[in-house]
Structure formats: C-alpha cells, structure tokens
C-alpha cells in the first residue's frame, strides 16, 4: 500500500453538494426548474404576445404555431399568460411559503423547546387559529388588506402555519429529551440556539415536505381568494386564476388548453421543487444512505 499524503477531509458543505449531485431525482429537478425559470423570467424578450392583450377575433383558438398554448376566452395568448402567471404565482407561493414556514417553525419550536408555559400558551393559540373558519378570516383580511401580491402573500401565510407549528412541535417534543440537546443546555444554550442549531436541522424533513406542499397549496389558495375579491386581481395572470377558468363547463370540455397548460406548469413546478427539496434534505442528512 502506498503512503498517501494527509488529505484534509472535505467540509460538510462539499459533502452535501456531493450527495446532492449523485441524487438523480434532485438533479432532474434542477434540470427542470432552471430552464422553466429562465423562460419565465425572459419570455418578454422573445415572445411576441403580451399576457393582457386581448384579441376577440382569435378567442378560444387551440394551440398552433402562432399561439403555442392557444388563446383564452378573450383571445389572450395562453403561453404569455402561463409565463406571466408563473412569475406572479411563484412569487406569491415562495414568499408565502417562506413566511408561513418561518411563523410555523418558530411557533412550533418555541412551544416545544421554550418550556411548559410557552407550550401551553402557544398551542392554545394555534388551536384558536385552527378553529377560525378560513372563509371568514379571509373576508375580513380581504377588506383590510385589499388585493395585490403582498396582501395575498400575507393572507396565505397567516392561514397556513398552524399545521406546521403542530408538526414541528411534535417532532421537537421528542428531541428535547435527547442527550445532545441536554448537552447544549448544559453549555448554557438559550432558546435561539436550541431553535436554530438543534430544532431546525432536526425538523428539516418536515419543513421540506411542508414547503413543497405549501407551494402547491399557496398557488391554489390564491386562486380561491379571487372569489372573495382577494388575491391577484384579474386580468393579471396567475396560474391559479387561469385554472379557475375551468369552472365553466365549456372551457373544461372544449378548450382544455386553457387550463391544462397552467395546470401542467403548476405540476411541473411542484415536482421540480419537490425533487430539489428532497435532494437538499438528503444532502444535509449525514446518515442518509447513498444511492
């Protein structure tokens, strides 16, 4: 055996990247997400139709070379709308997912790690929020916050965090009895340290799943909000409100491209995000089996 010169073992980030790159599904997710994102961001440069230009003469026409994805009920180009809707929907979804994940995680983790009182008060508050009927909540918020992207983000976030909070808490209730958490306490760790150094990495799997599911959920919720005069006001495009067009039987049956394409885009986005999320989770789980 040859003597090898001492090699420094690679850092955790390098190892995580390594694990990520050998995960085929994750790489597939990246391959899916990057071009789609690039298309969404650059489409005005190379696509001649604008998302809000109506053409009543060309309405409800099917996919063609001119209109790749066909046109909608007022003759707007579905491709341009899917792109534009992607910007808005993804922005709303990602922003609201981040926000609700932060709120949910903090609530759950503080409840679990912050002691008896924090738990009792925090969880009763969660109970209360969970019992509020969302529709009422939305109506009130709608009248206060109005329409637009940021109110929508706010509303969706406020609606979605309690479940995450309870799940994170469930996970951390068990964690806080573990020796290494006690060890951290023994070194004088305060709540923030426990939250972020122990709570966060150990609930990362839940957070990842929550985030991917919440992205889909947020996009659909935004669509639901437009019924209540909230959400992204039409005619601005979002995947959600494009899907809403399928409420009309005629569109559902005769002009399927009007909902299939935004629906497909949504599914692709969710799949990509999910695969990337799973890949990241695995990459940062040092014990995960390689495959």
């Amino acid at each position, binding site marked *: 055996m040859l003597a090898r010169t001492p090699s420094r073992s690679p850092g955790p980030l390098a190892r995580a990247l390594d694990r990520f790159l050998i995960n085929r599904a994750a790489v597939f997710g990246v391959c899916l997400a990057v071009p789609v994102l690039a298309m969404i961001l650059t489409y005005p440069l190379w696509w001649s139709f604008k998302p*809000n*230009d*109506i053409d*009543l*003469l060309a*309405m409800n026409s099917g996919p063609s070379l001119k209109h790749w994805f066909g046109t*909608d*009920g*007022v*003759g*707007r180009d579905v491709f341009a709308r899917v792109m534009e809707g992607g910007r808005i929907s993804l922005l709303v979804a990602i922003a609201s997912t981040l926000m609700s994940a932060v709120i949910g995680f903090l609530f759950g983790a503080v409840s679990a790690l912050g002691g008896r009182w924090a738990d009792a008060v925090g969880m009763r508050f969660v109970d209360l929020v969970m019992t509020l009927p969302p529709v009422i909540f939305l*109506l009130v918020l709608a*009248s206060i916050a109005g*329409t637009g992207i940021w109110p929508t983000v706010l509303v969706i976030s406020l609606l979605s965090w309690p479940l995450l909070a309870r799940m994170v808490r469930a996970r951390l209730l068990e964690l806080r009895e573990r020796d290494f958490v006690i060890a951290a306490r023994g070194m004088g760790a305060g709540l923030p340290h426990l939250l972020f150094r122990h709570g966060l990495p150990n609930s990362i799997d839940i957070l990842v799943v929550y985030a991917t599911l919440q992205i889909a959920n947020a996009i659909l919720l935004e669509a639901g909000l*437009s*019924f*209540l*005069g909230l959400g992204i*006001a*039409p*005619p601005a495009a979002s995947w959600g409100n494009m899907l*809403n*067009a399928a*409420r*009309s*039987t*005629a*569109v*559902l*049956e*005769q002009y399927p491209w009007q909902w299939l394409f935004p629906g497909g885009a949504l599914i692709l986005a969710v799949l990509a995000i999910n695969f990337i999320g799973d890949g990241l989770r695995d990459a940062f789980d040092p014990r995960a089996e390689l495959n």
Partner: protein
Amino acid sequence: ATLSGGFDVGPGGFQGNFNPLAATAGFTWLSIYFEPLVTYDAKLQKPVGVLASSYEVSPDQLTYTFKLVDAKWHDGKPFTAKDAKFTMELAKNAKTGSVLAARLTPVSSVEAPDEHTLVLKLSAPSASLMDTLTKVMMLPEHALAAIPADQLAKNPWWSTSPIGTGAFKFTKYVNDQYVELAANTDYRSGKPALEKIINRYFADPAAAIAALRAGEIQFTYVDSNEVPTFKEDKSFRVIEGNSFVVNYLGFNHESPIWKDLRVRQAVMHAINRDAIIQSLYGGAAKPANCAYVADQLVPKDIDPYAYDPEKAKALLKEAGWDQINGGKPITLLTYYTTPLATNVLAAVQAMLAQVGINVVPRAVDAPTYNSIVLKPDADISQFQLVYAGLQNGPDAGSINVGLNEKQIPPAGPNVVRARMPDLTAALDAALGEPDAAKRDGRYQQVCKVMNSQLPWGTLWVANRYGVVSTKVKDFVWTPAPGGGPYQADPQRWSIAE
C-alpha cells in the same frame, strides 16, 4: 311520471327558501305550488289573473277590485277572499319578515266584502302595484292564523307542510338535496299530467349541467357560454329569453373624475360592445344605449355610441383627462364573479386602457358589494366605477330606484349617486303617468335623457338560457328576474317515457 329539474339554479333561484313572503327570488319554483292573485303572461308582458278571475281599477287609480276564482287549498278547504285578505295583511306587515311590505305601503286598506271579492284601497296611485301583486302568493288563513306574525318566519310549516292552491302539492324536503311535489289531482284546471316534480338543489351550476347531461334531471338554467354545447345536441331544447337586466358601467357621480360628460362619452365610445356581444356572449345580448332595449321604450333618434377609440381619445383630450385623472388606476367594482363576467371585464379593461383609462376590476361577493355601495357615506375610492346590472322590466319603472335623485342612499339604491334633474323629472313623470297608453312615451323620454347625459355607461341586456330535455312537452320557462312568477301552467307539463 316525474320531472326533475334544477329550478333554483342560476340568478332566478333561491335555494332553501320556502317562504314566499321573504322571497326575493325563486318564484319559478314557489309558483308551482303556491299561486298569486295575478301573474305575468309567459312573455312577461302583461299581468293575467290566476286566483283572480278578473280585476278592475277605479279611474282614480286608488281602488283595485279583484274577483276570485273557486279554488281549493291542498287540504281540501276552499280558498276565499278571507284568505286573500289575510295574505295581503301578512305581506304588508314587516314583522312577518315580508320583503314586500315596503312596496305595499301605498295600500291603505284591504277589504273582503264577500267570499269572492277582494278590494284594495290605495293612498296614492302606484304604477308598480300590479307588478308587486304578482309576487304575493296566497296563503291559507286556517293554517297560519294561529301563529303570531313575528314568529311566522321561524315556523317550520314552510318547509314541512306548506299548502297552497297550485297544481302540485308539497310532499317533502330533503335537507339541501331536493324538494318533491306531487300532482294535485283536484286542481281546478284539470289533473296535472305529471305525477311528481322534483327540484334538485345544486350548489354549483356546473354540477347541474352534469346532472342534465347524465339524464338525471330534465331542466336547468345555464350560463350563456355553456349554450353552444347544447345547441347542437338534439336531445335538448335551449330556451332563450330576455334577462330584463341591463348591464352598465356605473359612474360614481360623487367622484370628480366623471364630472365631464365628454369623459363619460369617451367611455362609451371606447368599448366595442358589438365585439364583446358577438364573441363573449355568442351574440346573445342586445347593446343598450339607455336602460332599455325593448323597441317600444327606445326612441329612434338616440346616439348609438358606436365603437370609435379615436373619438374617445379626442373627447378625453378635450376634457383634459390627463389633468382629471390620467393613468391613475380606477377601481371597477363588481359582484359578478362568473367566468363570463371575468372575461367581459378583461375585455372592457383592455379596451379602456387603449384610450388611456386605467381601470382595475375588483370582483367581490354580493354582500360586500351591497355594503360598499349602499353605505350612505360611501368611500369613493372603493368604487369609482361599478360593473352592475339593474332590473329594467317587465315593469319599466323598475329602474327608477337606481337613477332617481330621490333614491340616493339612504333613501334608495341609486348607487351611482346620479343627480340629474332632467332624468329625475322624466322618471317621476313616467311613474306618475296614470294612463297606460302614454306610459311608453314617458319611458322613451327617460331613455333619451339617459342616452344624452349618461348617468351610466349602459352596455347591454343579455339573454338568459334554460335547457330542457326534448322529452319534456309543454314546458314553459321564462328567464324572469327573480324567477317570475309568470303563467307557466305546470299542470300541462308532461314527459315522454
């Protein structure tokens, strides 16, 4: 044989309401087992008798005398003038929860001089009294007299054992599912052809269409954009009718941006109504240049406001639109949330944008809309413009409430706060016109004023549609506002097996 239908689907329906006194809609269904004294004919042109065989109006328009037919309640008891008097008094009494009370205030007394005569005395002439009376369904005194007026609405009688005089009698209501009626074999105009009529409830109109196509029901209301599917299908007959609702862009006259008539005219010129009607409504609407589209109400020489974006731009320029508002967003409030309306608004927005008017549609649910626009000190910024509709028939006077200066909230629902003395004068004159023959002329005047002064940007009157299976014979349905009532003759409906 059984006929099932979605009788309460669509704008004329009122699912779950069994109390005609409290009904603002749903008369298509209610009038199958209840009957009023008078109703409209099936074309919604003139009132005809139902439980009244004839009626007379005194020359001063203050006394109405009804002769009543020989009819029987579903429990076999005879229907008499006492029942009619009882009903009228319930309807006048706001404590019963009657929504008709306000409209019946002109009626100062109700008399039943004999079994078959009912006399109404009015304190002032009322052109819309007959219209109101079509909605007063006769109720049995013997069943309801014992219930205190303020408890009446809460009584379970309405949804468990109501009795009327109609061709069918109530058999059961299954919670949120359906109402079932059975033939009233003693019906005075003959035994109904059908054995049962079932009114199925649908929370989602698309589900009603599915049920219709699955053959589970034989009739339902459909939105106009669903019509093409059925037009080609031989097993269905599409029934088309005037909605009697005029759609308009209501300028909030308290907002300074619409002060200048030229701006309002520009809005009219900027919108290609024909294109919208042709493409989005599939041709099933009539452009409106005032609140009316009926030939007898529209004078020949009014401005058609043809589509002319250049003219619109010129008008805006003249008016100095850049100073008035320019490109600032203008909230366009609406309570229409159907896919069709969403498309219409998208088109309107795009068309207005072309001439430099930046409107932002905001669709809210009806209660929200009402609470915003009806508030006496409404917030202008919340609704500088509305996209709405107003009933314009069968009684042409229906639009008065939306335009008369005296109807500005809180007094009435003149939500655009139109303060136009000429218009108010024209409306007052038309409503006060005792002579039915001259009335159309008066309304033509209203139309003219509206057309020139543009309290609203009137758009169109759309058609409404019902689809019925071709197996069903002699079926009468008219898309009346609130579902009627009108002469539907349900006893003649039949279904081929």
